[in-house]
């Protein structure tokens, strides 16, 4: 890579764009499914989770990328974990101090960002071998890709499961009077898996390249 490459070169922009579609971390790389199931009951925690993952991911990517020539390969996984874990603790502390309500809502899931496979996956696959700026773009792109799926899934789960969006009721009361009922199953984790499955289905039927050949 030449030193004079512009910040938003086509190559760098592709790092952001690709994870939103053809290399989406959840639907294509199938990483980070666990948290996608857990926090998508409602839209709001999903959005905050996206932002937290974004913060953790971009900073750890840049840190790992800066250290990439100093990290001994034999302990690189440990180093990645330490960087991610400290970032997660920082995010948790900051949320507790400045966004107490939100931190209560996310409760255990902030801590679980540590185990989010996307972050370690990208550190291992990208940041260890690339310069800070492309690593930053890659992290941002993947966090967006993760957040996009989270938001789509939680949109349907909250709408169909509780009849609300961001906590506000959107299904009018008259629907309920006619016998419409919220689908309790949507609130339970299995439906997140099914919604993710539907997204994967839609995505692959539109983009045949993604269909695995046997």
């Amino acid at each position, binding site marked *: 890579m030449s030193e004079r490459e512009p910040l938003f070169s086509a190559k760098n922009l592709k790092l952001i764009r690709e994870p939103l579609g053809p290399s989406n971390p959840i639907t294509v790389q199938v990483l980070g499914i666990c948290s996608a199931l857990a926090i998508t009951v409602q839209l709001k925690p999903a959005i905050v989770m996206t932002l937290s993952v974004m913060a953790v991911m971009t900073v750890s990517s840049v840190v790992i990328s800066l250290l990439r020539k100093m990290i001994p390969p034999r*302990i690189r996984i440990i180093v990645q974990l*330490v960087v991610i874990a*400290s970032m997660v603790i920082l995010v948790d502390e900051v949320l507790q101090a400045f966004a107490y309500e939100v931190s209560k809502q996310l*409760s255990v899931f902030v801590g679980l960002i540590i185990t989010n496979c996307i972050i370690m996956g990208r550190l291992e696959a990208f940041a260890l071998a690339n310069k800070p700026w492309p690593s930053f773009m890659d992290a941002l792109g993947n966090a967006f890709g993760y957040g996009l799926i989270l938001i789509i899934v939680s949109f349907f789960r909250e709408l169909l499961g509780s009849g609300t969006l961001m906590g506000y009721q959107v299904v009018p009361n008259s629907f309920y009077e006619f016998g419409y009922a919220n689908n309790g199953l949507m609130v*339970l984790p299995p439906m997140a898996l099914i919604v993710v499955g539907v997204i994967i289905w839609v995505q692959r039927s539109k983009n045949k390249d993604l269909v695995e050949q046997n």
Partner: protein
Amino acid sequence: MKSYSNTYIFIFSVIMVVVVAVLLSFVAMQLKPLQDLNQEIERKEDILASVGEAEDVSDVKDKNAFIEQEFEKYIADSYVVNFNGETVDRDAFEVTLNIKVQADKPVEERLYPVFVYTAEGGAHKYIVPVRGKGLWGPIWGYMAFEPDMNTIAGAIFDHSKETPGLGAEINTNWFEEEFIGKKIFNEQGEFVSIGVLKNAETANNPHAVDAISGGTITSNGLDDMLEDYLAGYVAHFKEKRTEN
């Protein structure tokens, strides 16, 4: 791939750990006062919410100041009693803030704070904190009693790690409202607590509420918490009841 000596790896790890430790402890110490303040405000908000005050808090710009002001206004009096109902010279709010310490002790040795709520018309309600174990972590709450020290006027529960959509439902309105009007003493005046039961037939049973489907362990934990914690107040409640 470049190879690194063991010494390098060792030094690298030591430096990394020290840097991370210093950074995290520094941040934790800097943010501690803010976090403590948030917790204090939350306790006060919960105490007010158990009697249905400060409900429009989300419309207020300066939440902390609003809660402090409402707390001053409505919770004029508070005191601490022990298991035998004798008054202990301690600050009720401070005991409530560190309720974990009390909850870890046996029932007989705990200190029991009581907050007296005075409504605008002058009527009193008595608010007591409770704390127990859910499925994944602690659960806690505030129960408000009418002056008969028997009928529940309101209840607020919260948790730190219960399963969202299941056990975590204990902090929702529909569940908390079930408690209003329930009684903790039976007709013979014996303490029976409030059962959190499956098929509670709540309409005919003044001492039970419906448990949460899918949240059995949290519901059982809540049931145990009420029985365990309210038992400590029985002596004081019986005394207070005759006074009122």
